[in-house]
């Protein structure tokens, strides 16, 4: 089975580092990381990952802006994005079940097991 390529755009390099270890350990994913949003957009264009994990709060350029940039570009507009956010309350998590304003997101902190299952869900054809 071909490995899925996942791109993580997050200024928290240590987070990306451990996520990469956890995902690649499953042998199902190949993980690319970018700590700089602009760099992340470039990697997305060139590497065309199967899914992007995008942190919402980053210096220089927020996750929202990165997402709209990716959606504007025909090369990247079809890549599913899961947002990462540290600013979610208990209620929102229970009520929205992972969606705010129609967008899929994962609340930080997240366990490796949950992260993997959410990524797999998003990769099922048709769901996105």
């Amino acid at each position, binding site marked *: 089975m071909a490995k899925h390529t996942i791109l993580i755009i997050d200024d928290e390099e240590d987070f990306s580092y451990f*996520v990469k270890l956890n995902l690649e350990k499953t042998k199902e994913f190949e993980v690319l990381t970018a700590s700089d949003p602009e760099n992340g957009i470039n990697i997305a264009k060139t590497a065309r990952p199967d899914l992007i994990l995008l942190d919402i709060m980053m210096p220089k350029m927020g996750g929202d802006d990165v997402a709209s940039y990716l959606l504007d570009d025909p090369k990247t507009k079809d890549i599913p994005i899961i947002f990462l956010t540290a600013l979610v309350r208990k209620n929102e998590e229970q009520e929205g079940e992972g969606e705010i304003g129609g967008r899929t997101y994962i609340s930080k902190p997240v366990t490796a097991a949950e992260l993997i299952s959410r990524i797999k869900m998003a990769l099922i054809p048709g769901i996105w």
Partner: protein
Amino acid sequence: MSEQKKVFVADDDPTALFSLKELLSKSGFLVESTDSPGEVVARVNNFKPHLILLDLVMPGLDGFTVCETLQGDKKTRGIPIIAISGLAGYADMERAYNLGVVAYFTKPYDFQKLLKEINSAIAYKEALQEERNFISAVLDTAGALIVVLDRQGRIVRWNAACELITGYAFQEIENKCPWDIFLKPQEKEEARAAFENSYSGQFPRKSENCWITKNGALRTIAWSDTALTDSDGTIKNIVSTGIDITERTLAEERLQDAYDELRRAQIQLVQSAKMAAIGRIANWVAHEIKNPLAIIIQGTDYLKSQVASEPALREPAQRITDAALRADRIVKDLLNFSRQSTSSQEEKEIPPVIEESLSLVEHQMSLRNVQILREFPSYTPKVKMDVNQMKQVFINILINAVEAMPGGGKISIVVGETKEETGRRNLEIVFSDTGEGILEENIPKVFETFFSTKKKEGSAGLGLPITKEIVEKHGGRIMIESKTGKGTSVRIKLPVAEPLT
């Protein structure tokens, strides 16, 4: 030149009467007379003399009785009476003086002495009238209300200010008790009793009451009562001096209202400023702490996967994960507390909301061997609420109760409708546990932000403050009673939504 003084003479002896009339006329008096005692009262009323000469021994009507009648009538009471009598007994004299006779002459008498007595009695009476007028004038210039009561509490005098404020003329209230005229029915009895008890009390005495004026308006009056005593010290009259403080009271109330309003606004301002500050801090803390927590959790998850076969390393790694997850819960509580969530109100019955809340903590309760006793009536009125927020209230209380009973126990939940004196209908929900209770000194602090006795277990001390805020946002109240070793009761009162049918 002063006016001609009028003297009325009553004597059944025509000769004596004639000569007396002659002498008095010559002395400058205007005289009228009768020899029939039955006529005296009517004639006096008609003639309005300055003085009466009265023979006490007359056929038919007794002179003493005439005297009594004259003294007993308001219109003739003030007219001085000089008694002339053939009786010279001490007992008769004493009886006459007791009836208010000013002088007593025994026939035969010296006319010059009688004349002197007549003149001095009239002069005395006039001086008294003058003094009375003077006092009335002084009383009437006073802005304060002045009311004089007799021993029975009847009004015997009052001043112009009283007429002005009450709208009653003196004649309308004379000899009536003030409480019968001016007080509300429910205050009468108390005022009467207070008056009757007042003789033993200390003077001056201060009080306040509300008078109803002739046109139905209410005036608040502050009274100061003084006792007027006889020469032997017995109280004859109570003099009440009153100041109309209606405007002042209103102004004070308005001032107090304005002050209260200001204080509320101030507290709200401080509170919302505090909440805004907490909100900013919470967001910052959440972001700055959740990111490292995310790293720790991803990191320990990776380590755990690497040491899956080594329990000696798995356990420490798991403990790090647990600690990080606990820190995450605190941060989430903090965010919940600080953010104003958009609330959606709906009218709903409380028991189903309690059931839903119970189902969310069921697992924890069965782990801890906690039993639930429900006492829900078959019908409960609906309450307007944000269901999610109300669930949070119940969950917070249930979790607190469960945590207070580490060895298991019972939580009883009683729901019922109560009515306040004001007519407000409440739905009351009482959660009682059989737990360890709260130390007395801690009870006032449980609703304080960041107060917690479970810091170690990851409590941020926000559960009950949030609970209280939500309950109060719903127009309700929350109270806690607790006994150490016995348990804790949390009582919530929420206003009922539907109108009485």
